[in-house]
């Protein structure tokens, strides 16, 4: 019974591969971002910033490489925020009652859904990394095979912690809402500030002070920090700014995401334990 969440996970993954259009778009969307936005923006940014010289001894990176980490982060954010949607449908179509009336602990419903959301984000992150390398993204510059493997694990750890937090958040909202439109509205409302008040697409060094402060509380910033640290190293130069990240910084970012996920877990658990379905 302690493995009940695997049952929910199993069903979520059946649905994932069975809804062909959903599967297809979830795989294609990040690749399209990389291909169009990435190439279009990088020709611009690289022109503006090529005049700023990199400090001696620091590797300069092109914009496509810089934003690839942002695209992984953004895709993870979207996928995770929408991850609770399947619960909303379950609830509205009465399917949730089967699970709520069963002896499986209710926390396992949200754990199963979260685990499947994490899996989807891992798949998407892998596609972005693979496709990015084809487009010329300079991830893992000069790394040994072992270091690449470790770095990928590190990226997955960040993506996993981040997506867990937002999946649980999305599950909580879904359990409390009646309509998918409501969830969509909340997602739209949240993604814009989360996305733009972060370091996903551009450096935050040039932000006004209060936006900089805000961005430090933004989980997306910490996800991007982690991905860049593992993919690009602790000291690089991109978009006219130098990025130095120490091990302590990275651990701090990870801790922030872990705490965020833990808080969301507690919220979600409360919601699920009280869930009633009529």
């Amino acid at each position, binding site marked *: 019974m302690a493995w009940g969440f695997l049952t929910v996970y199993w069903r979520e993954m059946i649905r994932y591969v069975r809804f062909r259009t959903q599967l297809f778009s979830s795989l294609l969307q990040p690749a399209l971002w990389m291909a169009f936005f990435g190439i279009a923006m990088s020709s611009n940014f690289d022109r503006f910033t090529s005049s700023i010289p990199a400090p001696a001894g620091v590797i300069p990176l092109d914009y496509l490489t810089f934003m690839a980490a942002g695209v992984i982060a953004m895709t993870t954010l979207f996928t995770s925020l929408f991850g609770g949607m399947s619960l909303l449908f379950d609830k509205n179509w*009465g399917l949730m009652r089967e699970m*709520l*009336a069963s002896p499986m602990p209710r926390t396992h419903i949200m754990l199963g859904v979260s685990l499947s959301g994490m899996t989807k984000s891992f798949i998407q992150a892998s596609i972005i990394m693979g496709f990015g390398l084809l487009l010329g993204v300079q991830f893992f510059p000069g790394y040994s095979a072992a270091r690449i493997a470790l770095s990928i694990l590190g990226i997955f750890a960040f993506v996993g912690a981040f997506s867990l937090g937002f999946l649980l958040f999305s599950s909580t909202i879904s359990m409390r809402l009646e309509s998918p439109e409501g969830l969509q509205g909340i997602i739209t409302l949240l993604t814009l500030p989360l996305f733009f008040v972060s370091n996903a697409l551009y450096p935050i060094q040039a932000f006004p002070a209060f936006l900089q402060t805000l961005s430090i509380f933004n989980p997306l910033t910490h996800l991007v920090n982690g991905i860049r640290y593992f993919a690009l190293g602790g000291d690089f130069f991109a978009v006219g700014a130098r990025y130095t990240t120490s091990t302590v910084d990275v651990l701090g970012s990870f801790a922030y995401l872990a705490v965020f996920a833990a808080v969301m877990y507690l919220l979600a658990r409360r919601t699920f334990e009280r869930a009633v379905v009529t």
Partner: protein
Amino acid sequence: MGGDDIIEVRDLEHAFGNFTAVRGISFTVKKGEIFSFLGPNGAGKSTTINILTTLLPLQKGTVRVAGYDVAREPGKVREAIGIVFQEDVLDRDLTVGETMEFHGRLYGIPREERRRRIDDLLRIVELDSKRDERTKNLSGGMKRRLQIARGLMTQPEVLFLDEPTQGLDPQTRMRIWDYIRQVNGAGTTIFLTTHYMEEADMLSDRISIIDHGRLVVSGTPAGLKNALGEDVVYLETEDDGKARDALSGIEEIRSVTESPRGLSVTISADGSHCLPRIIERVRGAGIGISNVNLKKPTMDDVFVHYTGRELRDTGA
């Protein structure tokens, strides 16, 4: 309440906002019984089932199912029960086999056992040829059958069936009655709601009728019908007027009415015991009888008697 009560409901009340759907009902169901819960649309049947199955919180009253308090030990209750919901609740994109598999895993049935029960049950409900079909491609009756098979899979102590045979053809319905009896015979207590009175009549050991959130009457099917005391004998004779006179003096006869098609004799006691005497009397008076018909009250009559005639889809 005795020790063999598997469901004990005392003073149960439930309100949605300021509308009270269940207004203080008490009843018990004995272990091994088939218990039917009848009532017009909106009477509060599904609401009661939702509380008994822990899907709605207990607001007022006490409810024990399989020996556990639904408010205090909902987990234990959930382990002991199975439910077939009133509405079709199937994941459209899972196959028949996966639907069963998912349910079996939810209840933690070990793999071998799960496989065996799924095979057996799909054969019983004659869906084994549809095993790999997505549930959205099943006919309405097949969907019901699948949901019943799913409910039976966990071999619960108490099985709640909320209008299980709604919309099924007569053959399928009778086959489902057979399964219900089989499962009941194997020890599962059945809590049934239905709008098919003959279904309640055929299956139930006991029946309770609920209306506007209150229990109006409880009893065995035969007891309820007899209590109406309205057996009617229809007679066609050579001379209805004379026959009517001949019948005066039988004390169980409550009234006799004449119509162009014959006599209707309403009897206050069990009509089948009275019938021979009626025939003897009429024959004894030298009047020939061409047709005799005894109509006992049906569950329909009982239902309408206790819940009135007005339509309940509107309002409450």
